[in-house]
């Protein structure tokens, strides 16, 4: 995407948010999709709408296991607040949606396919450095990311070649090269990083941050399972 195309797209996205300045996960995932980063198949149910019908859920085309999450720009720590239900069987879906609806009456709900994966969880992030401007991070993701601190940074924008050098700095780099049978493709991850860098250049102004955590290797592609954006 060209720089001006990206700028227009990000501006359009900002102005379309349901709560201005506070994008929800579904909106963040829409942004990733528009730059060519895969996210799980999913359905967004707006606050106040009826629980998902069978037909809505069938668009997921899953083997029937789902993730049900509360989805609102006002709720940042959804797991800690009991807003995420994992591995929900298809026949339990209406009950799961109803349960979240009761707990968070004014929030939307996101129903997604449960994405199968082996191998490491990766984090990709972006922030605005006071000296150097928009910067992008890659590293070992998941809930222990802050414990391992196995991350590398580059300033946006950068090429996929530069992204590759960045990945080579990581301790977990061998897991992207088939270490102990783990899968995950370094080249396509580098490509995604350079896409995030292009996005960061437009999206990440002072005070803005982006977390894609985790992004995982599933069925021969990288899929962003969770995304959070703080935009000023």
């Amino acid at each position, binding site marked *: 995407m060209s720089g001006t195309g990206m700028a227009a797209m990000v501006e359009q996205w900002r102005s379309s948010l349901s709560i201005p300045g506070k994008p929800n996960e579904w909106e963040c995932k829409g942004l990733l999709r528009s730059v060519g980063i895969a996210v799980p198949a999913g359905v967004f149910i707006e606050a106040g709408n009826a629980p998902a019908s069978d037909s809505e859920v069938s668009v997921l085309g899953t083997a029937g296991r789902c993730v049900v999450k509360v989805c609102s720009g006002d709720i940042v720590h959804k797991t800690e607040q009991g807003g995420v239900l994992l591995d929900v069987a298809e026949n339990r879906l209406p009950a799961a949606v109803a349960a979240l609806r009761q707990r968070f009456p004014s929030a939307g709900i996101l129903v997604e396919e449960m994405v199968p994966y082996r191998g490491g969880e990766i984090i990709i992030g972006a*922030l605005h450095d006071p000296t150097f401007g928009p910067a992008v991070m890659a590293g070992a993701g998941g809930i222990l990311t802050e414990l391992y601190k196995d991350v590398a940074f580059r300033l946006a924008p950068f090429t996929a070649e530069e992204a590759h050098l960045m990945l080579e700095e990581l301790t977990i780099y061998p897991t992207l090269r088939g270490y102990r049978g783990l899968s995950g493709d370094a080249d396509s991850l580098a490509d995604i990083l350079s896409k995030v860098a292009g996005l960061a250049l437009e999206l990440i102004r002072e005070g803005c941050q982006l977390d894609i955590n985790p992004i995982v290797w599933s069925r021969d592609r990288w899929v962003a399972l969770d995304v959070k954006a703080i935009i000023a």
Partner: protein
Amino acid sequence: MSTLDANFKKIDKLLNPESVAVVGASNTKEKVGNIIFEGLKRSRARLYPVNPHEDVISGHKSYPQISDLPGTVDVAVITVRAEKAVDIAEQCARNRIDNIIIVAGGFAEAGEHGKTLEERLRAVPKRSGSRILGPNSLGVFVPENNFDTIFVEHGDRALAEGGGIAFVSQSGSVGVEALGLASNTGFPMRAFVGLGNKIDLNELDFLKFFGADDKTDCIALYIENVEQGRRFLEAAREVSRHKPVIALKAGRTPSGVSAVSSHTGKLAGSDRVVSGAFRQYGIQRAFDDEELCDAAKTLSYLPPARGNRVAVVTGAGGFGVMCADYIETDNPRARLRMAELSTGTISRIREKTPPFASCHNPVDLTAAVNNEMFVHTLGALLQDAEVDIVICITFFAPHAVTDKLIDRMAEVITGSDKPVLVFTEYGPFTDSYLKEFYRKGMIGFPSLTRAVRAVRFLVERGRILSALGERP
């Protein structure tokens, strides 16, 4: 003339002035104005002391004010306190003096009143074409022409021999201490510049200047904050095509992370972004003053490494084993590995070594080592296509190893396009050995870890050149 040329010419005058006014020059020993004036008498510049209370200073006619000078000068060094320094800087600008060095502290770092003074000072270069170095700057030291405004003790004559390193330091004391450390064992200095509070001239100006300066082959920076972040990085990338840029960036800036912080925000801590940015733009990062000086000296003297395969030659087995351990320890700057010597090299080494010597890497010549054996082995290692770098572990304890070895090693090392580093164990004679190595074009260290660390800088430099499409 383009702005770039004009700026280049002004900085060139700052480092190589024909005429210098010293405001606050004094006959009173111990006064900064006296120390600086006496020091400048060794330079070739015409000197004009400015002091309304004296007629003659150290044999030179003294002028009451800047406006009384017979003409303009290339550089004015202002040695008086902050309050008066601002007035005088304004006078200098009116008299079209291109370069003003302000030594005094007591500006923004000293509270509200100082901040007001600094604001007035900032307006001077904006209004006039004059450039200001400082305030709170030690000024400059250029061994080539003895132009030296540093008023504190710094190094010995080893620095005065000159060389290719431009050393630019935001902090005066860190710069001077590092120079002292370096001068004990020799340090090739093109110029020292103390940036101070950098209200005008900053690291970017000097990066561009020394980047374009033919006499500079390596740029070493100590900085606490980076002005014009992206422009500095872009300039560094261009410079690093031609010469190494090493930076010690101290002090963590506030990360600018909002109250609701992401994982990314917490992990950044601001400093990791700096490391990533430096790496991306070809700047080699040092983390303390010793590392900065070691790296600068090594990169100034030695060719970059074309690969990461290290061969070790030693007369002391234990140090060879330790060296191999250090080489193979993981390090984010550069992964090194022990070279696997070709069979041709091994048989060449065998020609002159006793049967109990180990001719595999690390090559252990044992206590039977002598000058001839050592030089022969070093030559064989350098000719092996499987070897990118050699570390010599050279002790002068064995009776058949004499000081004559130094000349013979120097001949082989300076004639090679592969880098060679020498480790000699720390002891009462080490500094003089290291200084002699230095005079003969060799880089030596009194510790193995420092030698291996310097090797990593050479490998990192080679990688930077490859990434920029330049041949290491």
